[in-house]
């Protein structure tokens, strides 16, 4: 069954302390070619029936993202693209 994935990221102008902490840690792992890291949330929604993008959009808007500081996208993802399927 396809799922709906909602990606929520901080707006670009908003400080992302998480991403910054990770970016600053990378040189200690010997990684010096990363320019920036931004960290957001990935939310996978499974519907009982057909996945409903509009519904997901509404949920994201009301519950999953904080419109004051975050942007989001909603999309349909086939099962074989999800994280577990790749293991």
């Amino acid at each position: 069954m396809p799922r709906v994935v909602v990606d929520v990221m901080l707006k670009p102008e908003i400080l992302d302390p998480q991403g910054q902490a990770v970016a600053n840690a990378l040189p200690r792992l010997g990684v010096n070619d990363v320019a920036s890291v931004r960290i957001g949330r990935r939310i996978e929604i499974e519907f009982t029936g057909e996945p409903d993008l509009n519904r997901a959009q509404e949920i994201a808007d009301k519950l999953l993202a904080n419109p004051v500081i975050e942007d989001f996208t909603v999309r349909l993802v086939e099962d074989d693209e999800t994280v577990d399927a790749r293991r």
Partner: protein
Amino acid sequence: MTTQDPVRDSDAAVAGPTAAPDRDATVIGWVGGVDTVPHAGDSPDELQPYAELGLRDDEYARIRQLLNRRPTQAELAMYSIMWSEHCSYKSSKVHLRQFGEKAPSSDRMLAGIGENAGVVRVSDELAVTFKVESHNHPSFVEPHQGAATGVGGIVRDILAMGARPVAVMDPLRFGAADHPDTARVLPGVVAGIGGYGNCLGLPNIGGEVVFDPCYQGNPLVNALCVGVLPVDRLQNKAAAGTGNVVVLMGAKTGRDGIGGVSVLASATFDEGSEQRRPSVQVGDPFIEKLLIEACLELYDEQLVVGIQDLGGAGLTCALAETAAAAGTGMRVWLERVPLREPSMEPHEILASESQERMLLVVEPEKLEAVLQTAEKWGVLATAIGEVTAPAPDGQPGRLVITWRDHLVVDVPPGSLADDGPVYHRPMREPADLILLQADRAETLPRPSDPDSLRETVLRMIASPNLADKTWVTEQYDRYVLGNTVLAQPEDSGVIRIDERSGIGIALSVDGNGRYARLDPYHGAKLALAEAYRNVAVTGAKPIAVTDCLNFGSPEDPGVMWQFAETVRGIADGCGELGIPVTGGNVSFYNQTGAAAIHPTPVVGVLGVLDDVADRIPMGFVPRDGGHDQIYLLGD
């Protein structure tokens, strides 16, 4: 939404609606067009959006008169910030003077009102600094970040005095407990305060949670921080010493909370003008923790001449105040400021409220050591300017700022910091007060039989204002630093401040908006008396007061009257109790439409215990199986 001063809220950042920012703002578009001092001289008639920035006609005229020309865009941004209610205290100044005038003389006071925070001596070697501040409006817009950055801001004030911050408290006011928006605001605020304070390693030793519908659109998030310093480590903000280096230390500068001044971008450069909207400040407590450790090391090694935190008014305020305090001038190269967003314009850099930054004044030969200390702690430190000489005639120097070789600011620092407008706003007792006062508690029905008494008691203990506050206080670390002697649910927070001598301090914050609404003068005195009692019952001797005055719009004569009465009450009360107000904060415009919140003075009292082991907790402890007597004192 709340009705606010169109541009500047009383407690800083105003966030606006969502917007599409232009990430890659076309640099070409404005570099050539940046508004410079010579250009301002050549174009006296250019229209400027001063009203949108919250400046009145006469204020704008005064700026032009001060400068003998129109201000540049960057200058206009700076004046609008520094002359805002929040920074200039233009409506409250004339009243707050009473705190100094009526204060009992105290030889404990090492720094008082006007400094970042008041400092009082508690022993020959040690001093304590404390202050309560508001972050009300940002916490309504974005509860978590608003409250978090409120804690971050007050902690930097304490740090700037030379102290190690050692504890925080959080007096809070929310709308009705069962209102849906309270379910958004309260958990966010509590998580924000906890998230920031816990991550900084500061124990939370008390506060308040009060619900009242009058705070529905205007929750109050006040934050108190207390710090400890050796008496001889006291720092000041004066940028003294011609030739000294001005260093910006801490986080990079981004478009945080530039709310107000974003109109400048749109007004002048309509081309491709998706407007740069105000943006919320996000706190990074980890950086603040590093900033604290780095600053303390700098103090101990005597590497700084002056220091000032960057608060609500960002770089503008820090540059203007440090220079004005010393009577010196300052030369700043704005392009040296490390930016999070390279496309920022000069006025945005100057207005940015990015968190976790401090401004240092350093002797040139010590610069290297300062930069090394910063690097050790992993915080950025950048020389951005230098202190310049006062004028030959002894007049103060000038604040001169360039941006990529363009002269964008050239003003007397004092004109920003000290010479802002001062208003004697009209005051009038609110017309409904007589009616309110006539509706006396004595006329309410009394429980007269066991059943109604039982019902009343049950109703009272179920009321959110009397209910257990554990849901909130469990989210705060009270143990960190290992010196917390009393905390929630005690009357005061008590901490040990010196393991060797056992000296401790007690702190309580109290306020009651309903009393103050009925009678602001006595309501304020009652808040003071309650905090004073709470401190005294722990066995501590109360020695100093801080206050946060949360009110509606000062442009409403009724509110202004409440404010004046409140200040008079606190000042008189302090005179009677014999302790000084050492600092505080005013938050106006806590108002939804025409409806202001109850006047809500929140008063913090600090006390000293020579031996903290003598503290008296509030629980009755039966000793040796004996039966202690219980007495009621007072009437």
